[in-house]
């Protein structure tokens, strides 16, 4: 086993420290060291987006980030999306709209869609399809996912 490196981060608002090897991806550390298993591994090569987390506010594939690179960073994972025991409107709309089947892609879609709505609260269908092109779903055929994101955007606008 390689040398362990000490890393200090903030994850979902909490200060978190961990030890890792330089070769370990942020995805590996989140799942295997910190047991934050909401973030999924699909391809492990940047193509599928199942491992999407926010790194300093930006969506990244955590399989293509080394955990040591997260020193000093703020990370948000799918576990941080629900607030005070309430599902986020995106989570609610994914459930109600059946925007998932096997669910492997869902955490990545939720995190990327949340980043999209933070940047653009009223995205068109084209915007959603373009910005979420880095997230792949083998089950739903995408239409329900796009609609769930649109519904969530409307609900969030109505409650503002």
């Amino acid at each position: 086993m390689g040398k362990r490196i000490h890393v200090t981060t903030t994850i979902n608002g909490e200060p978190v420290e961990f030890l890792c090897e330089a070769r370990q991806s942020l995805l590996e550390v989140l799942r295997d060291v910190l047991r934050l298993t909401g973030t999924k591994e699909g391809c492990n090569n940047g193509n599928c987006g199942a491992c999407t987390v926010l790194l300093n506010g930006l969506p990244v594939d955590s399989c293509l980030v080394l955990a040591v690179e997260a020193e000093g960073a703020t990370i948000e994972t799918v576990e941080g999306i629900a607030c005070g025991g309430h599902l986020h409107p995106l989570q609610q709309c994914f459930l109600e709209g059946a925007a998932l089947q096997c669910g492997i892609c869902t955490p990545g879609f939720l995190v990327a869609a949340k980043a999209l709505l933070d940047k653009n609260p009223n995205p068109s269908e084209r915007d959603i399809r373009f910005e979420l092109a880095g997230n792949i779903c083998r089950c739903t055929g995408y239409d329900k996912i796009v609609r769930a994101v649109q519904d969530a955007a409307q609900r969030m606008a109505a409650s503002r």
Partner: protein
Amino acid sequence: MSAATSAYVFLPRIRRVPSPPTPQLAAEIAALKDFEYAAAATVEEAVSLLAARGDSARVLAGGTDILVQLREGLRSVDLLVDIKKIPELTVLEYSPETGLKLGAATPCYRIYGDERLRTAYAALCDATRIIGGWQVQSRASVGGNLCNSSPAADSIPALIVHSATCQIAGPSGVRELPVEEFCTGPGRNALERGEFLVSLTFPPPLPRSGSHYLRHIPRNEMDIAVAGAGAWLALDESGRIAAARVALSAVAPTPKFAAEASEYLVGKAPTEEVFREAGELAKKVASPITDMRGPAEYRIHLAGVLVRRALTKAAERAQSGY
């Protein structure tokens, strides 16, 4: 999904795994061999780390190529030198008088997200907007795209048509190189032992100039170019072409500047016919291979079509001040 193994892709994005993978292979794929990681604080520190280790050290910018290559066993390193924490590596300084200075590790999203660059260096914004999806663009840098030196790299034709210059730091100081001389073969470039790319500089935009980069891919997003073309042109006061640059990707062992096509355009009116002829001339620099992305003849044909379209849009942008 793009499934590919070809010389032009250079490093296949998706590894074909015999199914079901043996437990040993599965573990190998999941885990990277361990290496050391060092975040350099200064250009000098990065140079000394790289010079001391030679081929067993590599630069880490956004990691979207190198981490995939390491995981797939296509490369192996003892040391990754993270350059993102060196202040010069993430600068983005622009003024209409002096042009653009772009730190080599600046991620794509900061480039296309900058309103000022959208008109001044439109082709570069077009290219950075289509490198991977949003997650990749949050990390991937233009310096990494250039230094990975894939023949199909989307930003390189844009860098060529915008006349970018590379600033390369090494053990004997900093040297400059025009970007069209940087790539020397698939995955190969002009960097010597201990050297790395610090920044790219771009001349200020000319009045009545415009540019565009586009590629052909079978999907709508997230794929490797079958062929790509960049074009830049500046018009004179009478509306004729005063200067032009055309470049191609994915049709030769390196991205190519199309000198003859570029020279032909000077003094001509920006018409469909002229652009078609420039496309024909640009085809001469194409020497593509046949692979699963497309046969050579098809790629040569595409090169002509894409150059015409890139020039048409570049001229529209020059005329409208986009």
